[in-house]
Each structure stands twice: as C-alpha cells, then as structure tokens.
C-alpha cells in the first residue's frame, strides 16, 4: 500500500469557489433590482430618480457615504466579477477549449484588475471636489 501523504498540496479552489459563491448571492439578490431600475426603467424615463442628477449624486458622496458606497461597489461589481470569472473559466472547459492555466489566470486576473479599477473609480468619485 502507498504511504499516506501527510503534506498534500493545498488546492486554491476554495478561494475561487468562495468568491464565486458570494458573487452568486449578490447576482441573485442585489443585481435584479439594480438591473431593472438602472438598466431599464430609468433610461426609459419611468422613474423620477432625482438622486441620479449629477449634482445630487456628488452631494450624496460628500455626505459621508464612503463605507456604504464601498460595500455597494464590492457587492454589485467586484464579487459578481469573480462570479463571472469562475463561470467563464469552467465554461471554457465545457466548450472543450483547453486553455489551461493561462485561461485561469486570464479569468481571475481580469476580475481582480476590473475590481481594482472599480474601487479606484469610486475613490475618484468620493474625492472629487463639488461643482
């Protein structure tokens, strides 16, 4: 019998799966409402949406909306990005595209890069002087 390996190589999959799972919850709970309101009803003019005027949005940011805004960007952009990266990474395998490690790095790397960009953009919005 082969001896039991007491120091097995740890898988990094739990990290990606946790991000996928958390992003999946956000996609299912936060995004439907956001998509319907910001993506459909607001552009069609069905909503008043006064806070979405540029000046009032800036005021909103100025009134110490830092932490809630950070949580909002994390829940509505960053985590769903990792959710999408996970599904695309495994979807490529389903489509018999053998992209291997490069595909994995590209998927999760892009998710990380875009998440950092979203957080940087939020930082710029919050730090912006009021008009």
């Amino acid at each position: 019998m082969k001896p039991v390996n007491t120091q097995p190589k740890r898988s990094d999959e739990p990290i990606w799966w946790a991000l996928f799972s958390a992003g999946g919850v956000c996609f299912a709970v936060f995004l439907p409402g956001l998509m319907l309101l910001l993506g459909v009803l607001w552009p069609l003019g069905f909503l008043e949406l006064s806070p979405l005027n540029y000046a009032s949005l800036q005021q909103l940011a100025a009134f110490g909306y830092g932490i809630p805004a950070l949580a909002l960007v994390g829940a509505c952009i960053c985590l769903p990005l990792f959710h999408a990266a996970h599904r695309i990474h495994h979807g490529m395998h389903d489509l018999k595209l053998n992209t291997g490690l490069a595909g994995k790095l590209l998927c999760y790397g892009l998710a990380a890069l875009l998440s950092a960009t979203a957080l940087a953009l939020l930082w710029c919005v919050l730090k912006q002087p009021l008009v």
Partner: protein
Amino acid sequence: MTEQKVNSSSTPKPYHSELSAFWWLKHRYYLLYMLREATVLPLLFFLGCLMYGLYSLSQSEQHWLGFVAFMQQGWVIALNLLAFVASLFHAKTFFELFPRVMPLAPAALMIAGQWLATLGVATVLFLMLGAG
C-alpha cells in the same frame, strides 16, 4: 477484411468516445445548464455599464450626461433587459441550490425567503431612487 486486420494486431486500440464541443445541444437539461452558465455574459455587460457610470461620475457633468445618453440607447436597454431576465434565471437556480447544500429549513421556505430578499432589495432601491 479490414476488421480482421485490426483484430489480428497484438494490442487492441483503446476506445475513445468523441465528445463534440456542442454536446450541450443534445439534451434539454444540458442546454439549461449551459444557459445558466451563460447568464454571466449579459451580467458582464451590465457591470461594464456600472463602471462606465462610475467613471463618468468621477469626471464631469458633461461625461455624466454622456453616460445617461448611452444608457438610453435601444440596444443598451435591450441588453440590460436581457441581463435582468438572466439574473432572475440565475437566482432561481442559485436559490434552489441553497437548501440542498445547507438544509436549515424546509426547502420551499428557504427558496421563498431568498426571493423575498431579492424583492426587498428591489423595493428599497425603488423607494431610494425616487419612484416616478
């Protein structure tokens, strides 16, 4: 004749089943699986819109008005409507998974509770953003 030739060789060839890249078109169940996986494609489009909005907000009012005009284009609204429908399909599959992974309460109750959360978030957003 050729069959006999193959059989007479010393080691038989191993059997490889050929799986096409379009295996998921063969059965409704597989197709639904692939559709669920594809829900992230319109999601990515909507996330791009959100990031464009953040960017324009960080620039100037001119940029912001440009973003508003972008969002009002027909094809953008159509894609975001698709993203909304996809999010509901994803939510249905995701909510049904939860009671199977972690059976804390009767499945129907857990699924209903999660839909209630989605509805609650949408309602709060609707009230916050100013109902017309």
